């Protein structure tokens, strides 16, 4: 980083080459490299300290705990890039796991219809949240804070805070189980959705409009981007994927549970900001979020394997997350200061 700009300048002799350099290794790339290094270091250290860490079984276990965070984090990355926030995803997961169990069992809709209604419902709640934001300008933090309270409350109200069992079915067994070779199905789902979201973010007009709206909403309006539609759609994304995770959670627990996914929203936001996405919008990448999700999952797993007191684990996680973002910012600032 320190001497390369000079080398380039002499080879091309203009300031333009410095500019190009900045594009090639911008702060985002520095962030990605930093995260990869961080994850590798964690892997090496934990492999030495905890003999069980490197086993395939444990790796799958890490990925499995990453899956719930990751699936939602893909959609939530676009929400945050658009300059918004969605803190309602944990309660939404619990709510939809309960709704699925109730609809499939006690209410007698049957599993297939229950799944469809759950997905449609997820879209509906997301669209509603986005509409409140886009149409009336209610800050998305407030809208989703309301949902955060209401969805968990409604789930507990319906179930009296007791798990609602789901009858065995091949589909739910599959969803909650593993593929031959021991790969959990929800991990596969996470990666499939990851590639879909990379595609949406990079290769669709909607995806690029999300970056434009988050980067400069006024300019987006003046450029003819339908800003309200973009804002509604990003929340449709988190709403839908929260319902998906709700279904997966119900499948894994064989029940709908109002207490499921507690604190998931904060793991999601932590993974996204560790991944280098700016909370003020306009900047962020799916790859960064993927690495952030893995980073968070590895730390969580490592602390358990090392036998750290469960209460103290949260303290360590909190310190590491803030520290990681701090390092990110410092690297980004140094990078841009040198390249400009």
């Amino acid at each position: 980083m320190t001497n390369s700009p000079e080398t380039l300048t002499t080879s091309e002799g203009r300031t333009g080459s410095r500019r190009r350099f900045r594009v090639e290794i911008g702060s985002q790339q520095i962030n990605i490299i930093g995260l990869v290094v961080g994850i590798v270091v964690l892997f090496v250290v934990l492999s030495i300290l905890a003999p069980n860490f490197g086993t395939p079984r444990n790796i799958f276990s890490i990925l499995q705990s990453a899956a719930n965070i990751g699936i939602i984090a893909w959609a939530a990355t676009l929400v945050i890039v658009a300059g918004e926030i969605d803190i309602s995803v944990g309660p939404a997961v619990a709510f939809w796991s309960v709704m699925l169990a109730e609809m499939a069992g006690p209410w007698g809709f049957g599993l297939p219809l229950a799944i469809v209604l759950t997905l449609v419902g997820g879209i509906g709640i997301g669209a509603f949240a986005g509409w409140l934001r886009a149409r009336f300008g209610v800050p998305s933090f407030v809208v989703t804070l309301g949902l955060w309270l209401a969805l968990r409350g409604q789930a507990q109200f319906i179930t009296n805070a007791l798990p609602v069992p789901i009858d065995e079915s091949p589909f739910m067994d599959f969803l909650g189980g593993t593929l031959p070779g021991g790969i959990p199905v929800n991990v596969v789902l996470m990666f499939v959705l990851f590639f879909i979201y990379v595609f949406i973010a990079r290769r669709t007009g909607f995806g690029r409009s999300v970056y434009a709206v988050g980067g400069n909403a006024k300019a987006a309006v003046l450029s003819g981007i339908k800003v309200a539609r973009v804002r509604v759609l990003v929340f449709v994304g988190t709403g839908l994927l929260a319902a998906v995770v709700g279904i997966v959670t119900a499948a894994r627990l064989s029940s709908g549970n109002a207490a499921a996914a507690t604190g998931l929203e904060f793991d999601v936001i932590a993974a996204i900001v560790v991944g280098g996405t700016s909370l003020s919008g306009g900047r962020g990448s799916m790859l960064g979020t993927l690495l952030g999700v893995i980073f968070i999952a590895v730390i969580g797993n490592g602390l358990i394997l090392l036998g750290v007191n469960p209460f103290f684990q949260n303290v360590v996680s909190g310190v590491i997350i803030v520290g990681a973002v701090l390092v990110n910012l410092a690297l980004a600032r140094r990078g841009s200061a040198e390249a400009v």
Partner: protein
Amino acid sequence: MTDSLPHTTADLVVDVRDVSKQYPNVKALTRVDFTVSPGEVRALLGKNGAGKSTMIRLLSGAETPDSGQVFVGGHLLGTGGIDGARALGVRTVYQELSLIQSMTIAENMFMGHWLRNRTGIDYRAMAAATDLALKRLALDFRPNQLVSELGIADQQMVEIARALMDDLKLLILDEPTSSLSAGEVTRVLDVVAQLSSEGVAVIYVSHRLSEIRRVASSASVMRDGRLIDTRAIGELTTREVVQMMLGEAASEMEPIESAPDGAGEILISVRGLTLEPKLRNVDLDLRAGEVIGIAGILGSGRTELLQSIAGIVAPDSGSITMAGRELAGRGNARALRSGIGMTPENRKEDGIFPLLGIDENIVVSDWRRVSSGGVLRPRRVAAAAQTIVDQMSIKTSSTRAELNTLSGGNQQKAVIGRWLHADSTVLLLDEPTRGVDIEAKAQIYALIRNLAASGRVVVFVSSEVEELPAVCDRVFVLRGGELVDEFVAPNISTDTLLATAMAEH
């Protein structure tokens, strides 16, 4: 160069002696001498970049001179900064008001120095003091009213009242009336006259000669960092002011030679457009193949005219038709679909996506042209961007570079290019050369001519009047929200434009 009014140093409010100021690439002030007496209202005029702002910043303590000295009330203004100048009785009211909208008038009056009693902030005492200050200017606001409830003129009054709470010796007003209606202007001028009669010196930065004649006793004209002259207002004609402002530069740029035949197809027809208090009864035809200039001083309604045509603001009355379809008040999206593209005045705030690539900043105006089946095709994005980059001669090594790696001029070209990508036939360019270096300016002029030659109509708004004859086929002059005159090439001259724009109502 020298001040023509008689004086002795002791009783001057402002005494600027032989001051020079150099910025990294610009000589902002060159050996300026400038004095103002108590109770004097001094108009300060000059084009953009003439040195007015630097002068204001020196007097208000925001800058220190490289050489020479600034005295306020006989005291040397050293390195005390804004607080130092304030202690000597200098207050500046900028065009962008500095009041906190969500707080009360009283809280704003004491901003940062709120009165306290034993139980914390003393709202009663602040309200009482505020009431006195407001009464002094015959303002009947309640001290506990929120600033956001006040109109812009009233907010300006509050700022002036706030300035009066100190021992005010010099009040600097920077374009105070540019966003006000006629009635509001009168109130500001009355307050200025009152301050003057109380012995406060006022520096009044404005180009509205009618107002200047009503309120100022003398006028100083700056150009290229020098004080050209200071004259009593009674003996100064508009023509002379314009000549002093423009100097020899007036005839430097080659005007467009051939007059347009006026036979181009009318793309947009504006009739009776009214947007109180900014525009009144504007009639305008935009013909294909022409570059139309809009001349007018700050606050004359230039931006509002473009915004009305682009559907960003809805006019109170009047029609804007394009191909027989009414556009007035039908919104920005409709205007964009009809082929109207506008580049906003504040490129940074409203125009660019700094973190996105040059390519995306261009194709953002229409993703569909570079997609198929709803999916962006990178090759088509790259090709479309490259076309615009070539056409607009944007200097970059890669179309994928972040936009904020470009210079201001190249950013501007990308923003204009956005509308070429969308195939707009009407281009509304609000100050496209602001903050752009000379080379890029020349390129933008040439681009504008090319765009018109390709059958589009370009509306070019610039506060640098001397640009207009060099670029425009036809120039309309806006004054106080009305189109007051029209000039057709080759009979467009900078000094006539400026004189018309500044002339008394």
